[in-house]
C-alpha cells in the first residue's frame, strides 16, 4: 500500500542570512531608500517520489542540500510552495531529541507535554508514563525538573518518549545513538524493533552511510535541493562518494 507520495514538490524559503532585521533598521532603510525586498530562495526543486508501506528510505547528500527541509515538508511543518505531498496514517518525527523539553517542568510533566505535542492524547500519555520512565531509567528523577538532568539523561528521555510511539510513518534525523554504552545497546534494540516491523515506513536522514547501506531498502541522493538519483542504497552511496572524491 502506498504510504508517502510527493509530486513535483518545490519550496521557496526566505533565507535567514539576510535576516538581521529589526524594526529600527527597517524603518531607517526605508527612509534612506535602501530597503530591499526579502529574497526567496528555491530550496527544493520539483521533488517527486513515492514509498510503499514498510519501505525504509535513506536520504543522503552534502550539508545544506535540503535533506532536513524535505523531511519537514513531509511531516507537514512546512507547506510546499508548489506540488503535492500525500501521506497515509500517523507521522512521528524523531528530530533532535530533547529539543522540546521545558527545563522548568518536572520529568513527568515533560513526558505528558511532549507526548501531547507529538499528537497523543493526555490519557494515553498518562498510561504510558511508567513505561517511559522505566525505559529511560529515570524513575528516581520523575519529579525533578528537566534542567537538573544531564544532557545524556535528557536525550534518553527524549528517545524513550519518541520511540514509544508506533507510527505509520517514522521520520528520523540523525538520532540513532543516545546515551552511554548500555543505553545505546537498548536503544539499538528498540530501533531494530521499529525497523523490522513491516508496516512502518521509515524516512531517515543520516551521514552514517554504512547504516543506510545495511538497513535501508531505498536511497535518495539530494544535491542543492534536487534529486540526483533514486534507487538501491548501494548504488546511490557509490555514486555519491564518487562525486565527492
Amino acid at each position: 500500500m502506498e504510504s508517502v507520495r510527493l509530486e513535483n514538490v518545490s519550496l521557496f524559503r526566505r533565507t535567514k542570512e539576510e535576516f538581521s532585521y529589526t524594526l529600527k533598521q527597517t524603518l531607517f532603510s526605508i527612509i534612506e531608500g535602501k530597503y530591499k525586498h526579502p529574497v526567496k530562495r528555491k530550496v527544493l526543486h520539483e521533488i517527486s517520489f513515492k514509498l510503499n508501506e514498510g519501505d525504509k528510505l535513506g536520504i543522503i547528500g552534502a550539508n545544506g542540500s535540503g535533506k532536513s527541509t524535505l523531511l519537514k515538508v513531509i511531516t507537514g511543518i512546512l507547506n510546499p510552495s508548489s506540488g503535492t505531498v500525500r501521506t497515509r496514517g500517523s507521522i512521528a518525527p524523531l528530530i533532535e531529541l530533547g529539543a522540546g523539553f521545558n527545563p522548568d517542568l518536572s520529568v513527568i510533566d515533560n513526558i505528558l507535554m511532549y507526548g501531547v505535542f507529538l499528537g497523543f492524547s493526555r490519557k494515553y500519555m498518562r498510561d504510558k508514563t511508567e513505561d517511559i520512565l522505566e525505559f529511560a531509567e529515570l524513575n528516581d528523577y520523575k519529579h525533578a525538573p528537566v534542567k537538573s538532568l544531564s544532557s545524556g539523561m535528557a536525550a534518553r528521555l527524549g528517545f524513550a518518549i519518541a520511540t514509544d510511539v508506533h507510527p505509520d510513518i517514522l521520520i528520523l534525523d540523525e538520532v540513532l545513538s543516545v546515551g552511554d554504552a548500555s543505553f545505546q545497546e537498548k536503544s539499538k534494540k528498540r530501533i531494530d524493533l521499529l525497523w523490522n516491523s513491516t508496516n512502518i515506513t521509515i524516512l531517515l536522514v543520516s551521514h552514517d552511510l554504512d547504516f543506510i547501506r545495511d538497513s535501508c531498502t531505498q536511497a535518495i541522493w539530494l544535491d542543492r535541493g534536487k534529486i540526483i538519483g533514486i534507487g538501491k542504497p548501494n548504488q546511490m552511496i557509490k555514486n555519491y562518494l564518487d562525486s565527492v572524491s
Partner: protein
Amino acid sequence: MEIFQEKIYREESFQRYFEVVRTLVEFNLKIRYRGSFLGIYWSLLNPAIMTGVYTAIFGEAFIKYYNGSILRYMLAAFTGLVIIHFFTTSTSQALLSLTINGTLLNKLKLPAAAFPLAMIFSHLVQFCIGALPFLVIVTLIISKSLLNAIALLFPIIGLAMLCLGIGYIMSALYVFFRDLHYFYEIISFLMWISTPVFYPADIVPQNIQPILKLNPLSSIIESIRQIVLSAQFPDLFLIFQSVLTGSIVLIIGWLFFQILKPHYMDLI
C-alpha cells in the same frame, strides 16, 4: 495498524488542538506559580500598589468627580488598573510566545496559533481566580443585583478577544522585528495613559476626547466600571460596543496571523 488509530489524533482535529492548548495553559500556570495557589493573588499586588500611589497623589485633586468619596476614586482606579494590567502582561507575553517556541514549531507539526492563544488563556484563568471575584463582590455590594454580576462577563469576554487579537498580531510581527517589544512598551504605555484609569474622563479637553475613544480598551473599561460601580442597570450599548471591539480586533488579528504564516515559519 488499527489499534494505533485510536491513540493517535488525526492531524488537524479540533480535539488535538484543544489538548495542545489545555496542556500549554496548564504548564504555563504551573511554571508561573510553582504549585502555590496564593501565587495567583500576587498578580493583584501591582494594581493594588498603583491604586495606593494614585490615591495618595491624585485622590484629593479628583475627589469632586467621584461624589466626594475617596473610596469611589480608589475603586475606579483599581478596576481600571486590573484591566490594563491584564492587557499589558498578557499581550506582552503573547508577543514572545511564537519565537520562544520556535524550536518546537520547527521540529513538530503543531498549530502555531495555539501558542498565543494559550498565553492569553492562562492569563485569563489567572484573572478569573484573582481579580474577578473581587470585582464581583464589589458589584454585588454596590448594585445589589445579580444581573450586574453576570453582565460583567461580557466586557471581560470582549477584553479577552481584544488581547488575543493583539497577541496574534504582535507574536507574528515579533518574528520579523526582534526589537518589537521595546516599541510595544511604548504602545502599551499610550494605551494605558489614554484610558481614563487614574483620572476622570471629564478632565480631558473636549477636542481630545474623540481621539481617546479610538483606544479599544476605552469602551471595555468604561463598560466594566459602569457595571461594577454605577449601581445602575448594565448599559447594553457599552457592553455591545466592547464585545464588538473585541471581535473585530480578534478577527483582524487572526487573519493577519494566518496570512503571515508562510513567511514567519521560515524565520522562526
